[in-house]
Every structure is written in structure tokens, then in C-alpha cells.
């Protein structure tokens, strides 16, 4: 199993540009998550999905969009990038039928908006 994979590893965007951060998992997990982590800070939940076709907002969804057309993939779209979106983005997945189930994280995407 590859686990959770994220692409790209690094990206520099100009203000106003758009991009999609890719996330895939091969563990057949039902839940998937996107977080951002600013330097020296904890993880902030952007969006999450409880299954294909279902997504919901987390703590900091503004400026982002997601889709979940398959169980495996959960891309994060940034429209009109702003310097405030400079951060490290982590995708995670877990299998749960209730509220248990550990999360598996990808290696992260380091994004700089200038």
C-alpha cells in the first residue's frame, strides 16, 4: 500500500493564480480530510468528506473548494490564491463507522503564494 499520497510536494503561486492539490489513498478509507498548518502552529481543518459525493466545511474553508467523486481521491482547489494561503497542506484519511479510527497523513504540500 502506498498509503496517502499528495502532489505536488512544493509549489510557488503568484497572487490570483489557481491550483489543485491532489490527494489519493489506497486503503479504502471512507473519511478524508484536508488540513493546513502554518509555521509553529497546529493543524486547522479546511474540509472533510465522509464518503464519495459528500463533503463538508471545517474550521477554515474560505478560499478553498473540494470534491470527492471517488473513494480514493480528494482534491483541494485554491481559487484566486492569496498570501494568507501560504502554508503546508496535509491530507489525511481514516476508516471509521463511528468516531474511532486513526488518521493516516500524507507527506504534505508546501505552498508559497507571493
Amino acid at each position: 500500500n502506498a498509503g496517502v499520497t499528495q502532489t505536488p510536494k512544493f509549489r510557488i503561486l503568484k497572487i490570483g493564480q489557481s491550483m489543485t492539490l491532489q490527494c489519493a489513498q489506497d486503503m479504502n478509507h471512507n473519511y478524508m480530510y484536508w488540513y493546513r498548518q502554518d509555521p509553529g502552529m497546529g493543524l486547522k481543518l479546511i474540509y472533510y468528506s465522509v464518503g464519495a459525493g459528500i463533503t463538508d466545511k471545517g474550521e477554515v474553508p474560505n478560499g478553498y473548494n473540494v470534491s470527492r467523486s471517488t473513494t480514493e481521491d480528494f482534491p483541494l482547489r485554491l481559487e484566486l490564491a492569496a498570501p494568507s494561503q501560504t502554508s503546508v497542506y496535509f491530507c489525511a484519511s481514516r476508516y471509521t463507522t463511528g468516531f474511532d479510527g486513526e488518521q493516516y497523513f500524507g507527506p504534505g504540500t508546501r505552498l508559497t503564494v507571493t
Partner: protein
Amino acid sequence: SQKIEQNSEALNIQEGKTATLTCNYTNYSPAYLQWYRQDPGRGPVFLLLIRENEKEKRKERLKVTFDTTLKQSLFHITASQPADSATYLCARGDDMRFGAGTRLTVKP
């Protein structure tokens, strides 16, 4: 608002001592709490999960407690080693919201 807080940004201890990290939650009683380790430049890695009806959970040198009266979870690393140096994060299992983390440094 529902918060999950880790009081200490950083904790420095001597090798061999027990490290104790604190996670507090407010206005909400999670059914589960999870603890993760994060090394610089890497994604978090799961360590332990504790349910609200469990008072204590152990795994090797790690121990987690869950006190629903105090609304607090304690994470202990006994016989700490320099290799334990990392940031430790707690999370509400119900909605996977994380605290800010505590950066632990174990000095030889």
C-alpha cells in the same frame, strides 16, 4: 465555542525523566481523544486513542489518561529519550479537530 487546547507550547526535560503533556477541551465532551507525533517536515503519526469510558491506555513507554470531570487528557512518556523529541498533538476523535501541539525536547 468548542475548543481543544494544549497549554504548553514547549516542554524541555532531561533524558530518563517522564514527560507529561496536557490536552484540555471546553464546551464539548468528545467520545474519543487521539494523540499524534509530528516530526519536522513530516505529517503527524498516530500514537494512541482513548475512549471517554477508559481512564487509562498504555503502549510501551506511552500512557494516556482521560478525565471527563476535569475535561482533560494527559499524555506521558516514561524513561524519555532524545529520540522522543518531537511535537505532540491531541485531537478530538469525533471531528478530528487538533490542538496546537506541544514541542517536546529531551536533552541528553
